């Protein structure tokens, strides 16, 4: 019966298509995706992101302190789709891509994200409860913004970031407004938040803003006495799960993917700890694979300093003595130099000796060295004992000199006993382990600690790094910690044999792994603390210059003609955005003061809508702009683009608000409409004018370029013919 009833009904598909939305989306795809592979050359920061894409393709480990890995992974995914094999040298802006590189696919994903921003802004305006006309206005502003187009069309990350930010806000507001299938939107919002923070650290501020908005809404929910306590609890838990737990888990997940992809050693290895390096294929693990784990009396080891500033280095000695007198007239012990040397060398080998016994070979079974044991360290090639005494060190005179002991019979007795202090014994073990244990060597006579001071020695020390023993040390300083990197059990009694043994490579096979969490924490910490050289760039700018667009960035110049691409925004749109920001703030102040005096200019519903608009748009602008004022980094105009998008969201909505609630007379309303149309038209015309600088074609003459230099401070390049 049920079936027959079914069959009697007509089979109908009702579909509502928002033609405006479809139209702007199509236009967005057209403006962002057409001629995507032109110019067929490395454009601006592609040279920076490109190297990481290549490393992904080759699965070689790297550290980039500019942001978490998701952004790089998205770019790499695009490259992977196009079959890029990573064999391209990213060394110069403007270098031509060979035909083997599929430029289109490299740039596809950012461009798609950039294009999708336009319909998203449209939908977001609707969710802010403004009309379709406003939504169209916002979409058009975004559509015709030259700087966004430029930034989307290359292998850069801003458009990806903006896309996820907009998606997060849209889906959250959708969740807030919707009455059914809400939690899908909430989850989507959480996922986008995870992506936002995963692409760039700047996204963190947008995420925090979203959390603030969400907690305000939740606060209202808690105050709603019509809902039962249980229901409130459940809803709160859902929000916390989706908006806090999911993003955090995702953030960790990006690193998980990153680390499991990149399992080969590469150029950035040396920044990481020995244990981390050993977990990568090739590099250190090739050397250390199969080493004995526990350091024993008679072990031959190389000791690596745990600091990697200025460069990673190993405890070293060689057959040269400290000069009797330094340049400044101070005297030294004239004993053998002990330094830290940044290259692998046979002189980096030391032998652990039991002070009570003569022999330098490992017993069977080996007697492992434990925390608190007293040892001597014998230099493998010269057989000198590691020694320290109350003589000022060459470069850091407040600390003790460390030397290879030579007895000159000048009443300077050997003080060559060192106590092993394993500082991570709680986490690891009491036994000194290769790679894993971080060890301090405490000088028994003076209780000074062996320390890398990091100061390069003058010519007499071959510019190697100074090693000292320091009595007054900061307790937690990695310059005191040393790890055993290469290790083997010594078998040769005779010095000659031992030298041959030291020259031979270490081998034997065991695989050593550290957990994902340890790697994650170490990588994250390194990313946040690695300080790259503060460098100035020709096109860097200060945040205050962005508001008025005082600067531009030249992205690309054709190798022979005047064709060029610049990051220049649409000046009219920027003006509109700034104006609406100012207008909103003024209006908000006036409204607030008047409401406080009991004069309600707009009904409560409209007021809520107005406040929500401000929270999202003005708040979004603030969190994406103000942090830059406090940052000590090299900044560029493109850092302003996320903030700019919020302004474009604000402008049409504010206009609509003014149209419906501020202007009462019909003529004023009409005048506003005409004004808005005129502004839109001029925005379109400006867009057209700057198109040659946005798309890099057609080529303009020097005279035409001069005409496009609307501001004196813009740097537009002219080629001398």
């Amino acid at each position, binding site marked *: 019966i049920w079936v027959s009833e079914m069959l009697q009904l007509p089979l109908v598909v009702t579909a509502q298509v928002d033609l405006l939305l479809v139209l702007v989306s199509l236009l967005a795809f057209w403006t962002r995706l057409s001629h995507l592979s032109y110019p067929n050359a490395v454009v601006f920061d592609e040279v920076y992101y490109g190297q990481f894409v290549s490393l992904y393709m080759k699965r070689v480990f790297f550290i980039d302190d500019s942001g978490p890995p998701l952004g790089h992974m998205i770019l790499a995914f695009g490259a992977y789709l196009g079959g890029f094999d990573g064999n391209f040298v990213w060394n110069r802006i403007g270098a031509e891509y060979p035909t083997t590189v599929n430029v289109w696919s490299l740039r596809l994903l950012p461009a798609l994200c950039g294009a999708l921003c336009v319909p998203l802004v449209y939908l977001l305006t609707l969710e802010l409860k403004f009309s379709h006309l406003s939504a169209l206005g916002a979409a058009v502003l975004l559509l015709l913004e030259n700087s966004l187009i430029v930034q989307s069309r290359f292998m850069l990350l801003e458009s990806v970031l903006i896309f996820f930010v907009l998606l997060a806000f849209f889906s959250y507001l959708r969740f807030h407004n919707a009455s059914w299938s809400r939690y899908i939107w909430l989850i989507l919002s959480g996922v986008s938040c995870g992506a936002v923070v995963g692409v760039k650290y700047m996204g963190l501020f947008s995420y925090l803003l979203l959390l603030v908005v969400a907690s305000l809404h939740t*606060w209202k929910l*808690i*105050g709603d*006495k019509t809902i039962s*306590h249980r229901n*409130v609890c459940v809803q709160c838990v859902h929000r916390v799960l989706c908006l806090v737990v999911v993003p955090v888990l995702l953030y960790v997940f990006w690193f998980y993917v990153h680390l499991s992809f990149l399992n080969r050693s590469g150029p950035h290895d040396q920044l990481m700890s020995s244990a981390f390096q050993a977990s990568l294929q090739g590099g250190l693990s090739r050397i250390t694979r199969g080493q004995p784990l526990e350091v024993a009396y008679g072990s031959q080891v190389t000791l690596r300093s745990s600091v990697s500033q200025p460069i990673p280095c190993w405890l070293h000695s060689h057959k040269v003595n400290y000069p009797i007198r330094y340049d400044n007239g101070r005297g030294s012990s004239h004993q053998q130099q002990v330094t830290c040397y940044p290259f692998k060398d046979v002189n980096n080998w030391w032998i652990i000796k039991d002070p009570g016994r003569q022999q330098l070979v490992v017993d069977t079974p080996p007697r492992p060295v434990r925390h608190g044991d007293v040892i001597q360290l014998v230099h493998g090639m010269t057989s000198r004992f590691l020694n320290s005494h109350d003589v000022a060190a060459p470069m850091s005179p407040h600390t003790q000199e460390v030397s290879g002991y030579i007895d000159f019979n000048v009443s300077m007795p050997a003080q060559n006993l060192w106590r092993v202090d394993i500082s991570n014994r709680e986490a690891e073990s009491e036994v000194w382990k290769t790679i894993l244990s971080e060890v301090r060597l405490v000088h028994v006579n003076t209780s000074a600690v062996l320390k890398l001071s990091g100061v390069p020695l003058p010519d007499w020390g071959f510019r190697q790094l100074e090693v000292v023993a320091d009595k*007054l040390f*900061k*307790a*937690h*300083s990695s310059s005191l910690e040393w790890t055993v990197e290469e290790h083997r059990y010594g078998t040769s009694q005779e010095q000659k044999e031992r030298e041959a043994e030291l020259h031979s490579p270490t081998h034997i096979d065991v695989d050593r792994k550290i957990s994902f969490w340890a790697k994650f924490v170490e990588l994250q910490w390194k990313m946040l603390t690695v300080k790259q050289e503060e*460098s*100035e760039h*020709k096109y860097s700018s200060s945040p205050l210059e962005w508001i008025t667009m005082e600067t531009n960035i030249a992205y690309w110049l054709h190798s022979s003609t005047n064709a060029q691409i610049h990051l220049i925004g649409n000046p009219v749109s920027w003006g509109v955005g700034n104006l609406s920001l100012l207008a909103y703030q003024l209006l908000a102040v006036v409204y607030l*003061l008047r409401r*406080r*005096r*009991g004069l309600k200019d707009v009904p409560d519903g409209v007021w809520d809508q107005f406040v929500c608009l401000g929270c999202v748009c003005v708040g979004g602008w603030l969190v994406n702009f103000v942090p830059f004022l*406090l940052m*000590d980094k090299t900044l560029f105009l493109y850092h302003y683009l996320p903030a700019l998008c919020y302004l474009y969201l604000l402008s049409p909505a504010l206009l609509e608000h003014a149209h419906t609630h501020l202007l009462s007379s019909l003529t004023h309303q009409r005048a506003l409409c005409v004004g808005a149309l005129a502004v839109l038209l001029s925005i379109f015309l400006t867009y057209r004018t700057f198109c040659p600088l946005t798309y890099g074609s057609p080529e303009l003459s020097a005279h035409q370029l001069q005409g496009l230099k609307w501001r004196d401070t813009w740097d537009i390049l002219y080629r001398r013919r």
Partner: protein
Amino acid sequence: MAKAECTPKWNTLALRNRKTCPTPEKSFQTTFTPVSKDKNSQTAGLLAGGDTQSSNGPSGQFVARGSIESPSKVLLMLVAGLSFSTRLYKLTEPPHVCWDETHFGKMGSYYINRTFFFDVHPPLGKMLIGLAGYMSGYNGTFPFIKPGDKYENQNYWGMRGFCAVLGSFLPIFAYLIVLELSNSCTAAIIAATLLIFDTGCITISQYILLDPILMFFIMAAVLSMVKFNQQRYRSFTASWWFWLVLTGINLAGALGVKFVGLFVIVLVGLNTIGDLWRLLGDMSLSLVDIAKHFLARAFALILLPLILYVTIFAVHFVVLNKSGPGDGFFSSAFQSRLIGNNLHNASMPEYLAFGSTVTIKNLRIAGGYLHSHWHLYPEGVGARQQQVTAYLHKDYNNLWVVHRQQDNNSQSGNPDLVRHGDIVRLEHKETTRNLHSHLHEAPLTKKHFQVTGYGINGTGDANDLWQMEVCGGRKGDPVKVLRSKVRFLHRATGCVLYSSGKTLPKWGWEQIEVTCSPYLKETPSSQWNIEDHINPKLPNISLSVLKPNFLEILLESHIVMFRGNSGLKPKDNEMNSKPWHWPINYQGLRFSGVNATEYRVYLLGNPVVWWINLASLGLYFTMVAVASIATQRGFSLGQQRIEHSLVLVRGGGLLMLGWLLHYAPFFTMGRILYFHHYFPAMLFSSMLTGLTLDILFRSADLLLHPPYSYWFQRTGQLLLLFSILYSFYLFHPLSYGMTGPLAHEPGSAMAGLKWMDSWEF
């Protein structure tokens, strides 16, 4: 609901609580005698007074205000007595220069000697130190060269005593503020106890430093603000005006000592905005009334402090009228008003001529003199030639000789004047090298070219030639000494001599980078003036140099100060203190002495006090969250409970805001930070602790039934008191001096007290 039931009992409890307030003082007395021996007689008197008060208590009627007044006066005396005795005890030890006394003591001396100097802080604090020294008979002759110098026979106690007295007011102010905010003398006494027995607060108050003065003004400003808030129902009365104006005066004082005073200004500003917002919502007030309120506050909190602040600077400039070590930081015009400066009533040849010896000063504020010295640029930094920098101090290495393109020998007769557009060669007088530039990138500003000293005895190459231009001049105009702005355009590359203002690393002796900029925009960085001008062949003319007006001086000195402040970057080898170290008391500062043989003073907070503060911050947030969720969800709360949550949100909120404002901004600062920067925030944190813990103890009846909850409250208070006193007993050597072996060595008096590895005592 259970809570509703216990409210009546609560009232009686609260009543008892009030009466028993003075009890803690007894235990203060007994445990504390070893330290405050000299005050024994006084405190004994206080004890008696306290006893009579408490015995009076039960008989007296319980009136909300009055009941607080009487014991609180006694408690206040007690707090004052303890505070002064802990701060003034062993004031003159150690009898040598400790830590930053070397700066601030020296600057006090400068005031006494009226010598001009430069410092990154505004002058009020140092003026007061100077005044205190002057009044106590210090004659300003001690050089304060480095920490550890013995004072010998100098009268340094006056300056230390002045700081210690101001520092002693801090617990008193804290007591009054918390009392005002919470209406509970238990809370107030907890806050005051925390501060009195904090070794850090004691140490920082006992030396010639700006911090006690700064904190005095900060706390005084907060106190008068809180008092002013209490006057809200008595608008425009005398006491209303009194507290309002006092707030303004203290704000000016705080800002006049250090720029950190800005944070308390923000706090008062936010409080005032909130206050005005409340008034605006009060419909019984007409707009005219509100305008009056607004204007009164604008006058007392903006205009008045501004006037006072400017006055402080005016006094500063009037007092310091002799040339001193700070001259070079300022423009030539500024220097001309200092007695003893070579520009004061200067007489020198008016127009620059070939063969003259000159110093060339950059026009950027604090731009420095064009300078060179024998040292070369290190390897890897451009060409390995002699360094050229900008140097802020006067030095014979700042002298340059102006030569013609070719001839080196001076001709007889009147020398030719240098005119706009002439090609010159600048020879460094000391090293006889020429100012030189070439197409290597500059050491720091990579967009620019390197400037070096090149050649010997005046023979160089074509890269040594510079075209001299007078800004706004035409061809043939002569170059006026001091008054012309000139630019040096490099002939070969077309770039302009430029001072970037960036500090060179160690190899450049931390002087300022000089480059040759290819961007020819006219900015002060690329403009120079001729300051000293020596040419015996030209007649000297007394120059009536443009004396700058006061506002220009004020602006200039501020820009110089700000630049100086942001220029205090951490050095490579120095361990930098991070803001997150501070609240956990991670690491202190060595005030005096390093090793076992020396008399050591170590600035470190009393760990128990600081960790209680830290825990209370978390506790505060939890309690506020619980209270506000309960309110928002509409749970019915008893009267007492509602009062508590109001105190937490209003009073606690104010203190929390104060803490945040004095702490959070340090995270964004690029300059070098020290542990002692946290102390203003620590004051707020301690006051918040007093308020929070008091309410926590009083809310014990949420979990326990009446007799137990009362016991809990009592035990909690006593335990708190005991732990603070005992920890003070343990750690007091940090402030009052330690000798003998360090804590981790055997036989130390501080053995076992090194609870964190990072402490260095």
